[in-house]
């Protein structure tokens, strides 16, 4: 790859579930340090697109390049690849049988072969960063939704990823907890983390995104900077969508 700034390059990505074609040819790039926000109506394929990026869904056709290497290829080591991509889920998916701290320490210890002390230091630092140092020894079941999601973000950050993927991170939260998670994501973006975020939070898109894409019917209908995207939408479907959600 010639441009070192390009982290992801997606070419003509398609995904079919049975007879349903969910993605019909996605083309885009994600540059280093960029915050790409993906919006679209439900069922449009935006989550599927995100899940293709770390191969939780296997693309049916097309190419995905990450840091210059084609990843939807048999020769690619998916596990090593995923170590460099953090993922945050709508349902948090914390490990309920471990304390918060162990949740964060597990992957660095087993995959990066960190010693217990090193991993513990990393966990403490991240707990501090997400504002929950007092929850180190709590179990996920004892946390609120917002706290769970902040821990889930910390768990992903513990692997020191090159990019963070967020799949509707605030959709399962009570309204009063959305703010704390978005605030943390905003701080993360400001620290220079490359992020791809599927969300319904238009305020976040407007304020934090470097680019916003609108996916409908399995293709990218609009791809703009947020001011242009929200201020002067061109695509008809996007105009209709925005008129409903704003």
């Amino acid at each position, binding site marked *: 790859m010639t441009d070192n700034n390009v982290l992801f390059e997606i070419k003509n990505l398609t995904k079919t579930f049975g007879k349903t074609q969910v993605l019909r040819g996605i083309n885009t790039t994600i540059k280093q340090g960029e915050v790409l926000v993906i919006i679209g109506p439900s069922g449009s394929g935006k989550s599927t697109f995100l899940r293709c990026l*770390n191969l*939780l869904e296997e693309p049916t056709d097309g190419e995905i390049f990450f840091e210059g290497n084609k990843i939807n290829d048999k020769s690619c080591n998916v*596990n*090593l*690849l*995923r*170590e460099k*991509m*953090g*993922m945050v*889920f709508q*349902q948090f*998916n*914390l*490990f*309920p*049988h471990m304390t918060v701290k162990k949740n964060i320490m*597990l*992957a660095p210890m*087993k*995959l990066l072969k960190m010693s217990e002390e090193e991993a513990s230091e990393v966990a403490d630092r991240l707990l501090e960063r997400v504002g929950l140092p007092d929850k180190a020894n709590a*179990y*996920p*079941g*004892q946390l609120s939704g917002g706290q769970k999601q902040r821990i*889930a973000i910390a*768990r*992903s950050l513990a*692997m020191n990823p090159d990019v963070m993927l967020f799949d509707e991170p605030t959709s399962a939260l009570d309204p009063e907890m959305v703010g704390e998670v978005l605030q943390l994501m905003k701080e993360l973006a400001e620290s220079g983390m490359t992020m791809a975020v599927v969300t319904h939070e238009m305020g976040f898109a407007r304020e934090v995104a470097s680019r916003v894409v609108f996916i409908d019917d399995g293709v990218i209908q609009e791809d703009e900077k947020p001011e242009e995207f929200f201020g002067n939408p061109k695509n008809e479907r996007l105009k209709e969508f925005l008129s409903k959600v704003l």
Partner: protein
Amino acid sequence: MKEEFIQKFTQTFITDDRYKYFIDGLKITLLIAALAACIGIVIGFLIAIIKVTSERTGKLKLLNVLANIYLTVIRGTPATVQLLIMYYVIMQSSNNKILVAILTFGINSGAYVAEIVRSGISSIDRGQFEAGRSLGFTYGQTMWYIIIPQAFKNVLPALANEFITLLKETSVSGYVALNDLTRAGDLVRSRTYEAFFPLITVALIYLTLVIFLTMGVSKLERRLHTGDR
């Protein structure tokens, strides 16, 4: 009446130190049940993992076929018949009856443990699996560090119940002339021509064991529920 009672009691337990029959029989019953349980756990987890892996990834097809044959045969035939086949056919050359019984009941129990564990693994939310994989864990690591510990916890009560069943099932060991607890009672009965004391004693010993195990299980269940959930 009272004298007859004392006489029969003495005959059953005191004469020729017959109480030792019961103690030795109990030891053998416990030994078989405990070791068979260990074998059952190992086989059960292996079979369950094979089946789940085959279901989810489409790999291990041949092993899955073998696992299905094993489950069908073991659950479709009586344990007593399995014991007889093991003793008279498969392990004909072995004189070690205890080993035969341990293997038979272990292999038998494994089939039931497998179904319990498989349902336990299936009950774990798919998101747990995806979270593990998205961090970079392999399929096997995700199973080992994330799925199995949760599944094990969920199925512990069902597993304990399976072992209570196993303990009682070992009572057919007498079919291969193994002196377990049940046969000990029967031996004493055949010496004294008195059925009441030996058989009731055997029944009470089983009952006591099961009651203790059941108490243990419900204690365990309560601990698991108050824990981290």
